[in-house]
C-alpha cells in the first residue's frame, strides 16, 4: 500500500516536471521569435530612418537617376547614386548569366548523371566551398584573375565588372549548384520512370520532366545565389577597382552599392548628407534582399497542385 502511494507521487512529480519544462520551452521559443522580429524590424527601421534623411537635401530623382556622384561638404556636392544602382544591377545580372548555366549544369550532372562515387566526392567539396570566407575569394581574384583579365583584354588594369562577376560566380556557384542538386534529386523517381517507359532518352527525361518538376527549387536556388551576389562586399571591393564612375566596359574600374558603401563610410561624419546617402544605399540593398527572400518563401509554399 505504502509503496503504491510513493510510486503514484513519483509519477505525478515526473508529470509535473514534464509539463513545466514543456511550458518553459514554449515560452522560450515564443520569446526568441519575438526578439528576432524586433531585431529585424529595428534594423530595417534604423537603416530606413537614417537613409531617408538624404532626401531632405537631395531630390529623389537625382539620387536614383543622376550619375554624378561628387559627395562633399560644400555647395557643389552632388549625390547621384545611379552609377551604383546600375553597377549593382549589371554586376548581379552578369554574375547570374555566368553562374546559372554552369551551376545548374553541375546540379544536373551530380543528380542525374554522375556515378555514385563521384557524387559522394563532389558534393562535400561544394558544401565546403560555400563556407569559404569571401575575402579568400577576393584574394584569389586579386592575385590571379585581375592580372589575367588585364592580359586577355590588353588593358592596364583588370579590375572591373568582369573580374567581379567572375569572382562572384565562383562564390555563388556552390550555393546554386547544391540547392538545385538537392531539388533535382528530390524529384520522385516515378516521373523519370514514366518518361523512360515511353521511350524518352535520358536527355529528354532530364529536360522535359526532371527540370520542370524541380523548377521551384532551382528558382529558389538562383534567387538565394542572387541575394548573395547582391550583398557581397569584400570580394567585390578587392577586384572591382572602386572608382565611382559608370563602367563603359566590363574591364573598367567602377563601383557598386556595397563596394562604395564600404570604401566611403569610414571617412564621413555621421550627421552628413553623404552619410545619409550611403545609408540609403544600404537600406535599398536590405529591402531588395528581404523581398527576394520573401519571394523564395512564397514559391516554396505554393502547393504542387495548382
Amino acid at each position: 500500500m505504502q509503496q503504491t502511494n510513493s510510486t503514484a507521487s513519483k509519477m505525478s512529480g515526473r508529470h509535473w516536471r514534464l509539463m513545466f519544462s514543456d511550458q518553459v520551452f514554449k515560452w522560450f521559443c515564443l520569446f526568441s521569435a519575438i526578439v528576432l522580429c524586433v531585431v529585424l524590424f529595428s534594423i530595417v527601421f534604423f537603416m530606413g530612418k537614417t537613409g531617408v534623411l538624404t532626401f531632405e537635401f537631395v531630390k529623389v530623382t537625382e539620387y536614383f537617376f543622376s550619375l554624378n556622384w561628387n559627395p562633399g561638404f560644400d555647395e557643389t556636392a552632388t549625390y547621384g547614386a545611379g552609377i551604383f544602382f546600375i553597377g549593382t544591377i549589371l554586376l548581379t545580372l552578369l554574375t547570374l548569366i555566368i553562374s546559372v548555366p554552369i551551376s545548374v549544369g553541375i546540379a544536373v550532372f551530380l543528380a542525374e548523371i554522375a556515378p555514385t562515387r563521384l557524387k559522394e566526392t563532389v558534393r562535400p567539396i561544394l558544401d565546403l566551398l560555400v563556407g569559404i570566407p569571401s575575402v579568400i575569394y577576393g584574394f584569389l581574384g586579386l592575385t590571379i584573375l585581375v592580372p589575367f583579365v588585364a592580359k586577355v583584354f590588353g588593358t592596364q588594369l583588370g579590375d572591373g565588372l568582369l573580374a567581379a562577376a567572375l569572382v562572384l560566380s565562383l562564390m555563388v556557384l556552390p550555393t546554386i549548384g547544391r540547392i538545385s542538386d538537392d531539388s533535382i534529386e528530390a524529384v520522385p523517381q516515378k516521373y523519370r520512370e514514366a518518361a523512360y517507359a515511353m521511350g524518352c532518352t535520358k536527355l529528354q527525361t532530364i529536360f522535359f520532366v526532371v527540370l520542370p518538376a524541380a523548377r521551384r527549387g532551382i528558382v529558389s536556388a538562383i534567387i538565394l545565389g542572387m541575394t548573395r551576389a547582391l550583398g557581397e562586399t569584400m570580394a567585390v571591393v578587392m577586384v572591382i577597382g572602386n572608382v565611382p564612375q559608370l563602367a563603359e566596359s566590363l574591364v573598367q574600374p567602377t563601383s557598386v552599392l556595397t563596394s562604395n558603401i564600404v570604401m566611403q563610410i569610414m571617412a564621413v561624419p555621421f550627421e552628413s548628407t553623404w552619410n545619409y546617402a550611403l545609408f540609403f544605399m544600404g537600406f535599398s540593398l536590405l529591402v531588395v534582399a528581404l523581398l527576394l527572400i520573401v519571394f523564395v518563401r512564397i514559391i516554396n509554399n505554393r502547393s504542387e497542385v495548382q
Partner: protein
Amino acid sequence: MNDYINLHDVNLFYGTNQALKDVKLQAAKHEITAFIGPSGCGKSTLLRCLNRMNDLIPNVKITGEISVAGESLYGANTDVESLRKNIGMVFQAPNPFMMSIYDNIAFGPRRFGVKSKAILDEIVEKSLRAAVLWDEVKDQLKKSGLSLSGGQQQRLCIARALSVEPDVLLMDEATASLDPISTMKIEELVQQLKKDYTIVMVTHNMQQAARVSDKTCFFLNGEVIESAPTKTLFNNPEDKRTEDYITGRFG
C-alpha cells in the same frame, strides 16, 4: 502467334540476389496475360524485363532470351528507346506528370517529333477515348493531370502510354491503389484494349486475373510454377503449390 512474347531461360540477378530463375513463358498476341503470386516473387521484375526498365537499376544482370514479335529485346543492336516506345507501361501508383491533361498525352508524341497542333489534338482525343476518359475531361484539358481522381489519373496514364502507339501494354498492379469502382472501370477498359494491344498485367488480386485474363502465370520465388489458360489454371491447377495459392492457403 502463341509465342508473340517469348521468354526462354531468363535469369535475373540484383547484384548477387537472384530474382528470376530459368523463366520460360509465352504470351499470345491480342491476349491478356496475367502474372500472379505472392509479393516479392519477381512479377514486377519480370514485367520490367519486357521493356528493359531494369536497365535503369545498377548492378542488374540478365541472362536468357526474351523476344517480342520475333525480335530479341536484349540483342546487340536493340534500340532501347524505340523498344520502350513500342512496349508501353502503366505503373502501380498513377504517375501523371505535373502538367495539364493535354500536355501529359501530347508529351510522348512531341518527344518523337510531332509538332502540328492539329495532329496533337487528334492524338490527345484518340488516346483519351481509348482510355475511356475523354468524356470526363474533354472540357478541362488545360487542368493539371494531378487534379483528377486516382482512377482518372490511372486512366490518364494509360492514355499517355497509348499516345505513342505501342503494340504491347505492360501493367504493374495498375489497380492496386484504386477503389473498387475505378478498378472495375479499368478492368473493362483492359478488355476493350486487347482488340488492339497485347497486354501483360501483374496483379495482386487473383479474382482480377480470373475475371480479366486469357492466360495466367503463377510465380513463386522467382520461378514460374505454372502457366496455363486462365480457366484451366484456376479450375484444374496441375501443381500443388498453385492450388494452395489460389485456394488461399498462403500468400
